[in-house]
């Protein structure tokens, strides 16, 4: 029993070490991008930003609008129409601190995390990783680094969109439904929306993006030579990424807010 637990703990530490090492290597490779494969690596990065960031904008906008509407409705129904400052504070705490980065990351996991794990798994099974290595191209530099950086960039950008649209949606509903003026609403929001809040939100979304991509890349590249491993890689990538989101969120909460 103790031995099994120890084994699991060691496996978890090794896993965490692998993922963190992938992120660190990705940053190191960024520094040397001018030496190897600048053009192809930037192309992969831009494609990742396009796929993860731009193609997900529509779904992020719709979901953030709905979330903003729901949250403002709930807050006003609890706190009442007159308490604009409380409404502003709560909406900032919920959307900027928590839901913005978290929901954006969950959407990115569902769309891009699965795609990355599946694509790399397919490449591994098809021998394409070996083809790249035979060309003298490092998979860490050509496949992993631009994906990690691309997803992190996209998650940060999407989080900003999410928060802006959710706050705007919240204001529109408050304005039309309960005749809350812009002055009242903005007073509540901007009294708590400090640079610190925005930085925490962006750091959190960047970490989410880095780790989602690293975990999904790792899962994809871990596949053995069997097609049955492709869906398994995607599923494991999603589950581990989700778990990591909550771990990072908890650590960030302890680090920045306590």
């Amino acid at each position, binding site marked *: 029993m103790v031995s099994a637990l120890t084994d699991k703990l060691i496996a978890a530490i090794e896993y965490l070490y692998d993922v963190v090492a992938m992120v660190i290597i990705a940053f190191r490779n960024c520094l040397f991008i001018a030496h190897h*494969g600048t053009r192809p690596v930037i192309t992969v990065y831009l494609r990742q930003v396009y796929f993860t960031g731009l193609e997900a904008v529509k779904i992020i906008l719709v979901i953030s609008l709905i979330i903003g509407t729901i949250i403002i409705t709930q807050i006003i129904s609890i706190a009442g129409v007159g308490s604009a400052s409380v409404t502003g504070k709560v909406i900032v705490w919920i959307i900027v601190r928590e839901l913005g980065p978290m929901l954006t990351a969950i959407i990115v996991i569902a769309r891009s995390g699965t795609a990355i794990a599946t694509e790399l798994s397919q*490449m591994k099974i*098809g021998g394409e990783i*070996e083809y790249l290595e*035979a*060309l*003298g191209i490092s998979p860490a530099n050509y496949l992993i680094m631009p994906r990690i950086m691309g997803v992190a960039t996209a998650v940060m950008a999407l989080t900003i969109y999410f928060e802006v649209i959710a706050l705007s949606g919240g204001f529109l509903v408050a304005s039309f439904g309960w005749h809350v003026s812009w002055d009242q609403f903005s007073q509540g929001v901007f009294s708590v929306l400090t640079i610190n809040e925005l930085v925490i939100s962006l750091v959190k979304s960047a970490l989410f993006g880095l780790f989602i991509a690293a975990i999904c890349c790792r899962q994809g590249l871990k596949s053995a030579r069997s097609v049955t491993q492709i869906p398994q890689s995607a599923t494991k990538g999603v589950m581990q990424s989700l778990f990591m989101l909550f771990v990072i969120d908890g650590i960030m909460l302890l680090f920045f807010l306590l």
Partner: protein
Amino acid sequence: MRERALDNAIQFQDVTVDGHKECYSFAVPYGSFSSLISTRQVESDRIVQLALGLLKYSTGTILTINENVAALTTEELNKLRMRISVVFPSGGLISNLKAWENLLLPLEYHSKLSPALIHERGLTMLERVGYNGELLALPGHMSLYEKRLVGVARGMISDPELILYNNIFDGLTDSEKENISTIITEFHREKPGRTSLFMTSNHEALKEVAFDYHVILKGNEFHG
């Protein structure tokens, strides 16, 4: 500059791999146009992996272009691989890159040439191999012959010292084989000192090309 005493472009000395009974001992002379005949395709795949340092071996020594592959770091191995081209049985194309991107990938990644020059060299290579397919086709939409042509063009584009052709005639028609054999023979002759190793498990394929050296699998051993 490192002194070059290159008698052999590839040298395997008593090489064994864990889990496999074969023992590889052969040499491919520098500048030769050689063939390596194996009993199965997996055998030549393994030789390619070993020669490029993609597969670890348990005993023996492998020298590829005078470099002991087991002693090289990842970065040194990548530098060695830049001097070698491999044409894989499927063409070795990356599935999410278009034919044109696949062709230019090694040059775009490794060289400091301008995009215009790379573009020009790419077009020249495609013309040379007689590729008439779509430039923007993904490998999944290309025929086996087209994939091999792009693979051959990509192998030639970086002007390698050593080029390995791994079972590239399997599944092709006679005219397609003839075209590819003409291309690879001309490419070999064009630069003195270039080594070309044609690997096959199909003896029939040997009829297509006039080799000057053969390495043949005998029993469980390769002999040159």
